[in-house]
């Protein structure tokens, strides 16, 4: 019986020949990730279970990124507790406050490998699917169960296929593809499903671009988002992969509950308007709205190619008066590369604030919050009311190019017009 990539990975992880959608399986988790906002609750739950040690320290990744470095006494205490937990459990894969966002350091660290089952205590864990693994987010108690046993139950999801055709035009980005898709299917358009992105349009995307696309799978409700592995995947993983891996792909006659085709060759820059991720329109239709904050960063769009695209769009122009442009490279590696390439220098020269590599302004619990009535143009993934501070603030989600163009013009701007 033919299977999709998602079904094949869950079958392998649960020790079965095959699985079909709707079945409940208990699967062995290959990598378990938790960060500074979800790990403390998971550890509390673990201790309440009477368990002191994680099942396999080499498979656990702990990242301090949401409140990094800490801005409150409570978070500083949490970080100290997490360092102690990591030391006591001899967890080798610990990323302290200077290392970057979990969804960047896990792929960089070679943990997300084709065919693997990766579970993160964060909804955007689906990002790792860009490397051909089954990656999904859970809450803290489920993570505690994994920490204790290395296993978790899953309902095998139905799969949904997006065939992407064509090449993106100049200044149009992977972010625009995923915004367009979410605008079409809606914020619950893929709930409980595994979404698979295939076709030559995806083959043309870099791994970084695929990560942007998979990252936002959860914004349409998906349990996981996967790009089948190819040469680019191998190239990215060369020198990074922790251990061997076997590439897994969907059978050509595998069953999908829904299949949609997108030709992206004529796609325009898109923007998700307040307060819904599926409230998507072409940038052209909303241009001219004045912005107070421009955020370039996050697990969606804080990678080197995103920063390069931004400085190319800005092309020596200054950030507009009255706009605060906040840049947070997704990881220390990205930070270093951007530093060496002179990208950060150009951003700072333009008047941008370069923050430490972390979640930063994405979710209103660290630097760069909105005041009442303020407008943010953001390369991140959520524009819910109050997400970046005041509930009276407004968040527009867009590509790095659109964020950069808007930052220099002081208003929402199509990057092709700068």
């Amino acid at each position, binding site marked *: 019986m033919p299977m999709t990539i998602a079904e094949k990975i869950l079958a392998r992880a649960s020790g079965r020949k095959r699985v079909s959608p709707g079945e409940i399986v208990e699967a062995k988790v290959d990598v378990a990730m938790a960060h500074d*906002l*979800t790990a*403390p*609750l998971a550890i509390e*739950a673990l201790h*309440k*279970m*009477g*368990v*002191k*040690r994680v*099942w396999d320290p080499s498979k656990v990744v702990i990242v301090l990124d*949401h*409140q990094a470095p800490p801005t*409150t006494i*409570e*978070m500083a205490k*949490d970080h100290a507790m997490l360092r102690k937990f990591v030391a006591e459990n001899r967890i080798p894969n610990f990323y302290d406050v200077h290392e970057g966002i979990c969804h960047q350091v896990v792929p960089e660290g070679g943990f997300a490998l084709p065919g693997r089952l990766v579970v993160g*205590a*964060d*909804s955007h*864990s689906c990002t790792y699917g860009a490397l051909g693994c089954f990656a999904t*987010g*859970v*809450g*803290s*108690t*489920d993570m*505690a*169960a994994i920490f*204790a*046993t290395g296993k978790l139950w899953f309902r095998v999801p139905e799969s949904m296929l997006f065939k992407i055709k064509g090449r993106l035009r100049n200044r149009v980005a992977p972010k625009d593809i995923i915004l367009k898709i979410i605008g079409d299917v809606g*914020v*619950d358009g893929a*709930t*409980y499903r595994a979404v698979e992105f295939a076709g030559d349009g995806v083959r043309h995307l870099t791994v970084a671009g695929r990560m942007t696309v998979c990252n936002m799978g*959860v914004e349409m*409700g998906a*349990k996981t988002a996967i790009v089948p592995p190819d040469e680019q995947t191998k190239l990215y993983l060369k020198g990074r992969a922790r251990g061997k891996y076997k590439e897994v792909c969907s059978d050509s006659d595998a069953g999908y509950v829904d299949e949609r085709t997108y030709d992206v060759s004529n796609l325009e820059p898109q923007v998700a308007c307040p307060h*819904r991720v599926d409230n998507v329109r072409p940038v052209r239709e909303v241009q001219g709205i004045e912005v107070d904050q421009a955020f370039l960063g996050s697990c969606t769009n804080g990678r080197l190619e995103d920063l390069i695209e931004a400085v190319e769009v800005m092309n020596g122009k200054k950030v507009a008066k009255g706009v605060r442009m906040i840049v947070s490279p997704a990881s220390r590696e990205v930070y270093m590369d951007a530093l060496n390439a002179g990208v950060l220098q150009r951003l700072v020269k333009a008047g941008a604030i370069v923050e430490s590599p972390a979640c930063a302004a994405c*979710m*209103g*619990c660290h630097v760069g*919050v909105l005041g009442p009535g303020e407008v943010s143009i953001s390369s991140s993934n*959520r524009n*819910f*009311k*109050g*997400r970046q*501070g005041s*509930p009276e603030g407004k968040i527009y989600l867009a590509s790095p190019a659109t964020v950069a163009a808007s930052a220099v013009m002081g208003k929402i701007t199509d990057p092709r017009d700068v």
Partner: protein
Amino acid sequence: MARAWVFEDDVSTDDIIAGRYLIKHDPRELGIHAMENINPIFAKRVKRGDVIIGGKNFGCGSSREQAPIALKAAGVSAVVAESFARIFYRNSINQGLPVITCPGVRSGFKNMHKVKVDLKRGTIHNVTTGKVFKAEPFPDFILGILRAGGLIPYLKRRGAPRRR
């Protein structure tokens, strides 16, 4: 008697408890900020035992387990909705907060209607209008988790998987 608090479609976990409060640990502190972004009076007026009636895709967004923790601490005894987002659904069961999928329920309630929820039978009774809604009853093991007050107390009762 429990009262209904009716919400729109796509209530996110950011709506339930905003990111700026995730640095708090005490469930009571989370509870006093529940639903603050979309209904600032909710946490002040909600009474122990009250029920949330939601639309489609309730609990979408982040994996923060602080969301069901905040609702429970605020006094909410159950969330009945047209449909739920995946992670919130699992987290709520794990925290012992009944989350009941019941198509058609959203239009059958107005704020402050009196409501009775029977978990075992899977019925949601609008006492004000007299209408009864039928939901899928929970499988026994989930009822067991809910009765125990969450996954951790449930596992402890059954003898947790101890290591070393």
